[in-house]
């Protein structure tokens, strides 16, 4: 039975149970992931995006607990699964690619061994066969298969990230969670990796949840994007729709942060310090709230230029305001 809807997150709530009380880091977030698409989750650090990814895999560490909602994957609620079922799911049906491949690989095992580990665990094959599969995987991501005997510290940053991707794809999962996969790399390598990811997706057809703080990157890679602020989803739309017509003040602020290479005011187009006045780089004043003591009502209101009375008291709901475009803002719902 094929599901067009691969992952549906409903009212997900994640809290840390600390000595000082519960701290909510993911606040009733809902979104859906359709088979084959690339959904981006954008947000600053602390917005809850990594937490969501780890929550899907139920790998958040103590004292985190999932205190509300459902996560439906291929029809089953992940929050109902027991340990054995979860373990069978991880790596095989849902895979994870973390940032900083420097720390994502075990320093004392060869990359071949680490690749083989996952294969052996999920598919009862011999070590020999698993090693062969490992070599094939390395080839797929563009690494010389003879490097199977190398240790992580012997590889460059870009190569390590490819290995992590290879590990994730080794068992042909249907969903791949990518958490800032290129953040720790330099720009040129970043490009290569992203191209690689897009190519692999076209070949293999898996679905990606792409998490990043870099909105410009997401605008290029993703089909749809969700914007997270302080644990809440404030806007969700198709990539183009978001880029051309951002509706939430936070999203607008984020988009205004990009310096354009093309200055529309200048006659010749290219800006490069010559014709026309330089565009103003506008940041968003203030800082994200402390999750232990969030502002009442809309979490963004202290930093919002368009804040009105109702923003300070009531949390805005996520509402569809245009085709495939949802926003949580009082100013747009009248």
């Amino acid at each position: 039975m094929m599901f067009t809807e691969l992952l549906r997150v409903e009212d997900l709530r994640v809290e840390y149970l600390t000595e000082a009380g519960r701290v909510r880091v993911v606040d009733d977030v809902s979104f859906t992931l359709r088979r084959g698409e690339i959904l981006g989750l954008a947000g600053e650090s602390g917005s809850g995006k990594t937490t969501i990814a780890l929550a899907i895999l139920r790998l958040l560490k103590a004292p985190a607990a999932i205190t509300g909602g459902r996560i439906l994957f291929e029809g089953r609620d992940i929050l109902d699964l027991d340990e054995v079922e979860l373990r069978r799911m991880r790596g095989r049906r849902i895979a994870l690619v973390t940032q900083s491949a420097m720390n994502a690989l075990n320093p004392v095992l060869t990359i071949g061994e680490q690749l083989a580990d996952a294969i052996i665990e999920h598919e009862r094959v011999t070590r020999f066969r698993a090693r062969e599969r490992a070599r094939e995987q390395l080839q797929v991501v563009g690494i010389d298969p003879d490097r199977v005997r190398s240790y992580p510290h012997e590889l460059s940053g870009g190569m390590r990230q490819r290995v992590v991707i290879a590990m994730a794809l080794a068992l042909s999962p249907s969903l791949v969670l990518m958490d800032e996969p290129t953040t720790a790399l330099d720009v040129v390598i970043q490009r290569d990796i992203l191209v690689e990811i897009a190519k692999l997706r076209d070949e293999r057809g898996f679905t990606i949840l792409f998490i990043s703080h870099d909105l410009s990157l997401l605008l290029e890679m993703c089909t749809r994007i969700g914007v997270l602020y302080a644990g809440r989803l404030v806007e969700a739309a198709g990539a183009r729709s978001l880029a051309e017509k951002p509706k939430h003040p936070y999203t607008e602020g984020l988009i205004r942060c990009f310096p354009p290479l093309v200055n529309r005011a200048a006659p010749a187009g290219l800006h490069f310090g010559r014709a026309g006045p330089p565009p103003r780089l506008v940041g968003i004043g203030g800082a994200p709230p402390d999750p232990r003591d969030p502002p009442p009502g809309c979490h963004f209101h202290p930093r919002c230029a368009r804040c009105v009375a109702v923003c300070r008291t009531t949390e805005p709901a996520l509402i569809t305001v245009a085709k495939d475009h949802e926003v949580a803002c009082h100013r747009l719902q009248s």
Partner: protein
Amino acid sequence: MRYLLRRLAFYLLAAWASITLAFVIPRLMPGDPEATMFARFHGKLDPQAMAALRDTFGFSDEPMWRQYISYLGHVASGDLGVSVSYFPARVGDVIATGMVWTLFLAGMAVVIAYALGTLLGIAAAWRRGGWLDSIGPPLFVLVGAFPFFWLAMLLLFLFGFTLGWTPVRHAYDSRVSAELSLSFVWSVVTHAALPAITIVVATVGSWMLDMRNTMVSILGEDYITMAHAKGLPPRRVMFRYAARNALLPSVTSFGMALGFLLSGSLLTEIVFSYPGQGYLLIQAVRSLDYPLIQGLFLTITLAVLGANFLVDIVYVWLDPRARRGQQ
């Protein structure tokens, strides 16, 4: 490889420093070292012993550096002089008899304590908040705070004297002949049991705590999360991913603690009158057998250096990063 060579050079340097210290210290005594030393014997030594003593220490009328060179020569050839209290036995021979027992007792006990403590530490870290994790640390901190030798006294008193479960001194029953027979082996085992248990009980706690803390730090690393995310079974992650990495700093601490561990076992030997290096040392001190004291100092120090080098080799074998000369 380069790493090991550098370490070897360091150990050779430290060995040289110890040998030189052994040369320098007697000569630092206030007054004329020779006269003071001989005065302590209240003239009880016969001329032969006196000559032997003088010879060992290189006391002569030659200039200091000459004495030093000849001293170095003696040490390099293994000639540590003649013992005063065991006259006319050579210091080297006396030490050799003690060495066997110390290696047996201390070697076995230290390894057992380390292995046991490490396993307990892994278990405690895995089940954070479990009973092992809550009771273990405070209990072991308390037990580890007792002086080694006091624990030895206590255990000896309880099990040796009061309950009579184990023998109370020496390495084996003197009535049994020292050959490879079952009764001899059994005698050796029962005599070594209590001293070994003392050493294990006194030290296992600190290994456990050490390993637990290292494991907890490592369990927070990204590659552990990734390992779980691959769907690997928890036990595989615990051993192959976490413990394997936690072993590295653990082995390093083991190396650094060797000197301390050896000192503790020596004290234990003294309490149990176990005829190893420790027992010899205290007898030498009591009878002011200076050549023996110096000889023991040298052998013990060099043994610790050697053991440290072995630990370094093990470390290189465990850490692929060290093999390439990086760290």
